């Protein structure tokens, strides 16, 4: 319940009071880090966090750490780092500023520490307010019998005007309509070339220019010739791989020749 959530946060103040009374006998683990401890200590000053005396706070903290160290040896590093830093801050605040020293002034550091404390305090209060809100499953509730969404699959059929006309053309065309495919009559395929070469290769006892293997109907037209040359060359390589022929070329752009391998 709400009180439970509060408890954690409320405890800080209780602890703060108790602490003040019990002269700082404290389990370090009870604090969530040096900032938490500082916040708790600062709350005992009972002033606006913005007007807090950082010097006094640093003094209290160092005091605390010193005592705590006597009781509990294993003070977490965080606490000691903070102690060292606060000692430094204290000295910066007490001594007149050293003009040769760079970096933020003691006042700036103190102001930031005050800001951090105030911010942490504000967040804790906000957390408490948040937890105190009406909450789902405790103060207000969802629908007890939600209705399952039924999943319905709808199939829509579509067709385009083109489909329609192709369909009609298909029916009305005397000669069998076939869907458009690329007509590759200028293409001499690798399969065709292989087949042709396999038939001819046994006659190639001597080195022969592969150009002589091109089919007649593919030799004249440059487009067809190109396709046939490429395929025949590829087919030749295939046959070399199979170990049936040898292939050679004496120079760049020289004729490519092949010969049956015995």
């Amino acid at each position, binding site marked *: 319940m709400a009180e439970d959530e509060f408890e954690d946060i409320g405890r800080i103040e209780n602890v703060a009071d108790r602490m003040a009374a019990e002269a700082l006998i404290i389990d370090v683990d009870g604090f969530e880090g040096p900032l938490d401890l500082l916040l708790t200590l600062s709350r005992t000053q009972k002033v606006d966090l913005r007007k807090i005396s950082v010097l006094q706070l640093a003094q209290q903290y160092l005091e605390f750490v010193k005592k705590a160290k006597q009781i509990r040896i294993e003070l977490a590093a965080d606490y000691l780092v903070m102690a060292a830093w606060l000692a430094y801050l204290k000295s910066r605040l007490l001594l007149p500023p050293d003009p040769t020293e760079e970096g933020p002034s003691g006042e700036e550091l103190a102001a930031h520490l005050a800001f951090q404390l105030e911010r942490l305090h504000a967040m804790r209060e906000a957390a408490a307010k948040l937890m105190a809100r009406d909450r789902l499953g405790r103060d207000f509730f969802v629908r007890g019998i939600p209705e399952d969404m039924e*999943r319905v699959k709808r199939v829509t059929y579509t067709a385009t005007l083109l489909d329609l006309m192709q369909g009609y053309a298909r029916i*009305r065309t005397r000669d069998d*309509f076939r869907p458009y495919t690329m007509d590759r009559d200028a293409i001499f395929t690798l399969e065709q070339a292989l087949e042709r070469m396999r038939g001819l290769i046994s006659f190639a006892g001597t080195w022969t220019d592969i150009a002589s293997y091109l089919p007649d109907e593919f030799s004249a037209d440059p487009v067809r010739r190109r396709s046939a040359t490429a395929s025949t060359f590829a087919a030749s390589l295939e046959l070399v791989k199979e170990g049936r022929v040898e292939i050679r070329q004496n120079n760049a752009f020289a004729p490519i020749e092949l010969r049956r391998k015995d």
Partner: protein
Amino acid sequence: MQEETDNKEESLFEAPPIAEQERMCEAIMFASAEPVSVGEMEARMPHGCDAAEALVHLRKRYEGRGVRLVKVGDAWAMRTAPDLGFLMQKESFETRKLSRAAIETLAIISYHQPVTRAEIEEIRGVSVSRGTVDQLLELEWIRFGRRKMTPGRPVTFVVTQGFLDHFGLESARDLPGLKELRAAGLLENRLPPRIMPTSLDSDEDDAEDLQEGQSELFED
């Protein structure tokens, strides 16, 4: 039962006003994972409440609304109004291409309307399955036209406005004729059909390719 009146009068003092009881019943029923009986409701409400009474009011309040109060056995629950059941469906859509048979049948109807089933079969050279016609009817791309004045008075099919809308046609007359189909390469094997759309602006001469019957339909 006989005690009820007494109890009520006795406890009216402490019991919250009926409007408040109504709210309570509303909340309980809303949040409960199962229907709640009157007894159960009263057990949860402050002493002296009359859940049955509150429910009568509540039920009236929800009349005609998107949810209503229903009695389930001797318990009560809230349910969405049955006429809104369609909202509880999550539809997933899938688009599929029309089958070849359907497209051809549709094409014939669009070019030859009004056309009988027998005529479609004659043109296609295969019989037309019932499913195909039903599908086209369901898509509302075709509908029944006038009966033919031939023996048997067969029904005819014509395309619908929905068909024209879907295919972006103003009228079935806008369908390109055979000549254009040929010009577009649809009747020849070589040319890619991609060239099609440019030739869609129809002119009159496609009439030669269309059968006489249909013109009567477009006479307006």
